[in-house]
């Protein structure tokens, strides 16, 4: 195999596109997934399962709307449980996409190209799931619009000091920008699909979506500019969204929430879980559709390295909490730390340490980084860990705050679980549809890598 031109010698060695590929082969390979006449049986199974889970979500939410928040395990003092935990978890996952597409793009990290597309898609779907929870967690969801600043007959506005209002703006902005970013990125490929599609309906649908893309120099020029601008626009959002989400807790007075380290710590955690999720999805994907050539070991390794980095930041966050509790000398904080580690919820705490810190350290070993399925396992463990982290922060802090007389514990009811699992179903369903009908990897950008493999055809 040929040596790598040093312009792409980024994080590690190894090609970002296995040699021997031509424009045609790339285009063929990727577009065939979307354009294939018959859908593979495995897809149907996968989609079927996730669709059923999505129906479970529908049922759970229906039941919730019919009866009220009481169907969940919530109580006083624990006013937030699975609902906000899931929200934060999903938003976190929604970070990788934009990070990869935007920041890595600005950093000219070419290894991003083959994973950015579905990372972005994943982001959108994750944000969709996330957006669901702030809505359904309301006691009176039918007046959700009170949260938006609109002129009403009461001369009333939202209360802008409340972090929940900031959330509304942060998350919706993030969703919008990510959507635009993703769609703009799709344009050339949509055109490709339009041109390669055999059946007329497909031609028309892709055609409309392609918005008249003809690949002219002007198009390309405008496209590049727009894409870059959007990237610039998206970059601060990656940081802002989870920062704002963390304010929900940081601005409160509750021990375990009231912490200045939350913004950076949440963002890092978000990226951590985001990349974990990308790995969780990309490894089976590349295996099933035989995309090993496009999503190479190098991609997996790089992502693993990002995991190590962000994982360590998260670990630092945990350490900082312990330190501050001890150093700050606030009896409530100190009790909180004790309660997390040795209180009734100790299993949650220790397993999150296990999942997020200990498991992450395995990635130091190249032997592990280069074994996709081991990597996959670790990624899943990290996802679980990150969910537990939010659970511990939100629930355990609430169960025992200031007045022992009203201390109570929380346990998710069956409806809590149904909603959680259901949201995963929603996520996967959307993802399956995406895989089936849109190019999972950016064809256009992959083409731009072809030459580096010197497989260019004369």
């Amino acid at each position, binding site marked *: 195999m040929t040596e790598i031109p040093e312009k792409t010698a980024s994080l590690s060695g190894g090609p970002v596109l296995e040699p021997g590929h031509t424009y045609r082969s790339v285009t063929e390979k990727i577009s065939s997934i979307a354009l294939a006449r018959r859908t593979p049986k495995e897809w149907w199974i996968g989609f079927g399962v996730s669709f059923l889970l999505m129906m479970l979500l529908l049922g759970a939410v229906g039941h919730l709307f019919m009866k009220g928040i009481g169907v969940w395990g919530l109580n006083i003092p624990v006013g937030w449980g699975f609902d906000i935990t899931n929200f934060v978890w999903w938003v976190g996952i929604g970070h990788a996409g934009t990070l990869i597409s935007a920041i890595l793009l600005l950093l000219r990290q070419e290894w991003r190209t083959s994973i950015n597309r579905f990372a972005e898609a994943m982001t959108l779907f994750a944000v969709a799931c996330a957006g669901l929870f702030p809505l359904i967690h309301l006691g009176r969801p039918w007046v959700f619009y009170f949260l938006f600043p609109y002129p009403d007959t*009461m*001369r009333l506005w939202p209360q802008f000091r409340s972090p929940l209002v900031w959330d509304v703006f942060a998350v919706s902005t993030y969703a919008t920008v990510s959507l635009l970013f993703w769609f703009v990125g799709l344009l050339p490929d949509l055109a490709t699909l339009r041109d390669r599609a055999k059946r007329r309906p497909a031609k028309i649908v892709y055609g409309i979506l392609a918005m*008249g893309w003809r690949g002219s120099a002007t198009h390309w020029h405008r496209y590049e500019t727009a894409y870059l601008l959007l990237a610039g626009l998206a970059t601060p959002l990656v940081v802002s969204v989870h920062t704002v989400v963390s304010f929900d807790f940081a601005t409160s007075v509750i021990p375990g929430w009231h912490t200045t380290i939350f913004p950076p710590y949440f963002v890092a955690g978000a990226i951590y879980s985001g990349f974990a999720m990308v790995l969780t999805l990309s490894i089976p994907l590349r295996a099933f559709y035989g995309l090993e050539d496009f999503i190479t070991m190098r991609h997996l390794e790089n992502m693993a390295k990002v995991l190590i980095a962000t994982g360590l930041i998260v670990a630092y966050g945990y350490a900082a909490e312990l330190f501050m509790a001890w150093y700050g000398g606030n009896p409530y904080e100190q009790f909180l730390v004790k309660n997390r580690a040795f209180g009734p919820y100790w299993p949650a705490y220790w397993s999150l340490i296990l999942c997020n810190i200990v498991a992450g350290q395995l990635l130091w070993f190249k032997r592990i980084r280069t074994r996709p399925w081991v990597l996959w396992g670790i990624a899943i463990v990290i996802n679980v860990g990150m969910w537990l982290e939010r659970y511990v922060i939100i629930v355990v802090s609430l169960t025992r705050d200031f007045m022992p007389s009203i201390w109570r514990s929380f346990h998710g009811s069956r409806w809590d679980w149904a909603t959680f699992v259901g949201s995963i179903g929603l996520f996967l369903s959307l993802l399956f549809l995406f895989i089936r009908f849109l190019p999972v990897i950016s064809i256009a950008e992959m083409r731009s890598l072809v030459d580096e493999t010197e497989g260019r055809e004369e």
Partner: protein
Amino acid sequence: MQIFHRSTNFLAKLSIFGSLFIAAGLAGAAWEIYQSPWTTQVNVPKEQPVPFSHEHHVRGLGLDCRYCHTSVETSAFAGIPPVKTCMTCHSQIWTNAEMLEPVRASYRNGRSIEWTRVHDLPQFVYFNHSIHVNKGIGCASCHGRVDEMPITWQVNSLYMRWCLSCHRDPKPFLRPRDQIFNMSYAPPADQAALGERLAKEYHLLNTAQMTDCVTCHR
């Protein structure tokens, strides 16, 4: 090979702008519906079991509001006259007017007349008539020229925005105490000055207190 005709480009552009206009239009429509009599019931005469005419009784006969709405000065509720009040006169005059049969019937069999509410605030609003009339707000300020209504209707939306418009600055509406029940009262030219004076005289609560949520909602 071409799927789309060139004209579709125009359609594409159009649809973008179009959607904007449609959105704006919907918002506008919603707003209109809020304001419309259909929601506010403003200027919609209400069907009543007996077509009672304030015009006749107030302007024509010169009855004072308090003759029927007895508790308006002392209670939150202005009071709907008991049938007996009607009968004080109608046992003497119009004793067999067809129109008044429901009244007599009610008095005979002791079953109340079911009037249709004209001014109906939501259950979560706690309005108190007595404090308003005691602090210089005339009946007509909210209920309009009832003395010109053959059948009663509502002249104001009773929306919170409307309440606030006065609670934020009551001065333009304040009257001398002796003019409260005067239907044809017209504010003097120097209402501004008068308002100032009366506001002091009545020592009204400050705006913060008057626009405080629990002033009306509990």
